[in-house]
């Protein structure tokens, strides 16, 4: 019996030692407080966090979320204080409208001047008082031309000849967005008849689908189990490495341009450190390293010329201005429309 107690106690001591080592190893010589960062999962080159800690002496508590809505509910619930959050466009708008964001002191974020002109003053933050873009990208169709032929329109996702090989977004905003764009409407419409038409279209599409998916899209398209589906441009590049047959197109009807932006929520305890962090991540060297790691496009204008990727990847990451002009960014929808989305989605999935 004594032996077991001994073993357990020594195991505890060992674990204690290990954790002690871990944290003391991380601590920087001159501690300048900390910064609590809340970002999407798998959405940063973690080397940058270590570098930031070494360069500034600020300790980073890094946490991750898996959807804008999840992040929103955590902020709303209270009892927590984050210093930097990185929500997407429409969620930034919602947080602004609910007075949940702290205005940024741009004099402390000098690298903001490096942000490309077309990434400033976007619809979600028209006066650019609350946010600094982190990454952006487009949604397009990923397809295997050998199976479904050349694709230049959303119509391919609704075409009965591709039946059984089509994948669709497993979230209401992106799925409805595609249907609305195909019909020639704005993705931010609140017009009930337009929304109804989009819903009818999705209802007709459902029997043709192999499934509604999010990250399973990687396996299904890489292995050839499915042949066509919409997803993010940056993630297409990952799939392309595994299955070079795959192609990407932004449909001629236009698409969604998403921006994930760094913001400081109300009640942040370390606002200065948060601004230091935002400034650091916006610098050209860091933006480039991050963009190479994630595969999404950096809003820093210098990165485009310096980034070390092949021409093909670059053409996907930086679409022509003419193509971008047709893309729309999501805005925050009024509650009535959000309720409509929820209702439609429940009906479609059941």
């Amino acid at each position, binding site marked *: *019996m004594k032996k*077991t*107690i001994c073993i*357990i106690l020594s*195991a*505890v001591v060992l*674990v*204690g030692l*290990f*954790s002690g080592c*871990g*944290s003391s190893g*991380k601590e920087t010589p001159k501690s300048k407080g*900390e910064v*609590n960062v*809340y970002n*999407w*999962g*798998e*959405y940063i080159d*973690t080397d940058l*966090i*270590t570098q930031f800690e070494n360069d500034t002496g600020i300790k980073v*508590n*890094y*946490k*991750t*979320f*898996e*959807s804008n809505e999840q992040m929103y509910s955590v902020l709303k*619930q*209270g*009892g*927590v*204080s*984050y210093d930097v959050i990185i929500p997407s466009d429409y969620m930034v708008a919602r947080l602004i409208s609910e007075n949940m964001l702290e205005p940024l002191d741009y004099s402390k974020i000098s690298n903001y001047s490096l942000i490309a002109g077309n990434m400033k003053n976007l619809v979600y933050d028209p006066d650019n008082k609350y946010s600094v873009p982190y990454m952006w990208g487009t949604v397009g169709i990923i397809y295997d031309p050998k199976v479904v032929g050349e694709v230049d329109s959303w119509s391919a996702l609704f075409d009965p000849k591709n039946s059984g090989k089509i994948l669709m977004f497993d979230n209401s905003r992106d799925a409805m967005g595609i249907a609305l764009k195909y019909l020639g409407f704005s993705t931010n419409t609140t017009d009930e008849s337009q929304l109804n038409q989009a819903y009818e279209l999705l209802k007709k599409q459902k029997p043709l689908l192999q499934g509604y998916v*999010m*990250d399973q899209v*990687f*396996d299904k398209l*890489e*292995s050839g*189990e499915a042949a066509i589906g919409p997803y993010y441009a940056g*993630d297409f590049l*990952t799939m392309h490495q*595994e299955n070079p047959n795959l192609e990407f197109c932004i449909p001629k009807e236009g698409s969604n341009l998403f921006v994930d932006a760094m913001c400081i929520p109300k009640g942040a305890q370390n606002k200065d450190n948060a601004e230091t962090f935002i400034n650091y991540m916006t610098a050209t060297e860091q933006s480039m390293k991050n963009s190479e790691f994630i595969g999404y496009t950096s809003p820093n204008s210098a990165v485009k010329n310096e980034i070390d990727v092949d021409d093909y990847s670059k053409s996907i990451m930086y679409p022509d201005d003419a193509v971008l002009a047709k893309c729309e960014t999501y805005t925050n929808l009024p509650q009535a429309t959000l309720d409509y989305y929820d209702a439609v989605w429940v009906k479609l999935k059941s």
Partner: protein
Amino acid sequence: MKKKYTGGKIFTALTYIFLYAPIVVLIVFSFNSTKSRSVWSGFTFEWYRQLFTDDLVMSSLQTTLLVSVLASLTAALIGTFAAIGFYNMKKKWRSPLLLINNIPVVNADIITGVSLSLLFVSAGLIMGFELGFGTLLIAHITFDIPYVILSVMPKLYQLDRNLFEAAQDLGCTWFQTIYRVIIPEIMPGIINGLLIAFTMSVDDFVISYFTAGSSVQTLSMTIYAMTRRRISPEINAISTLLFATVLILLLIVNLREERQHKAEKIKEDLLEGTV
């Protein structure tokens, strides 16, 4: 008769395949050389290497282990004394209290999580603290305690009631009786409770999710957040390691029980021999 027998065999085999096939797939793909989860493209240890250099995964693993160890030890301590208390109660009181103890075990995690979170948030507003490692630890201790009590109680029932008095007759103080007589007798129950509590803590997602706050993140929370983008095979690697750890723990528990049974049997045989 014989036919029925092979049917049973097939059924057993199917059950085990159903239970373990996913884990086998997970382990196999932790050695896959590309990120694909469906195409095998070669053997590699790359994901294990990346795993140990991924700061986020490692720091959340550290949080998970620290919380689990501290919570299961504290719960073992509190749970053991609670069980001894229950044991010495009148039955009128013991039964309802044990029933209340069982409720958190069968209760949905989400309810425990939300209610603890609400409690911590409101208490934090009054007393000026935020959700963090402390609240996470308290939450884990809270849901670990019932498991310890549940595994210690049976050992107490097996105890000879006279032992307590015999020890005191022979000059033990109250504390010595507990420490030198009762605790060693019920130790197997405590250890089992400790191990169950530990695995429950490592396993927990829902309650941690609601109580961890902004500065700490457990491993299960890190894995969950990866689901928008493709889950990296690092996760397969760490799950494989966790599975192996739990398997080893389980083997230890079972081997210990086996040994104890054998020892008791020998003791009984010897006693019978002397009669």
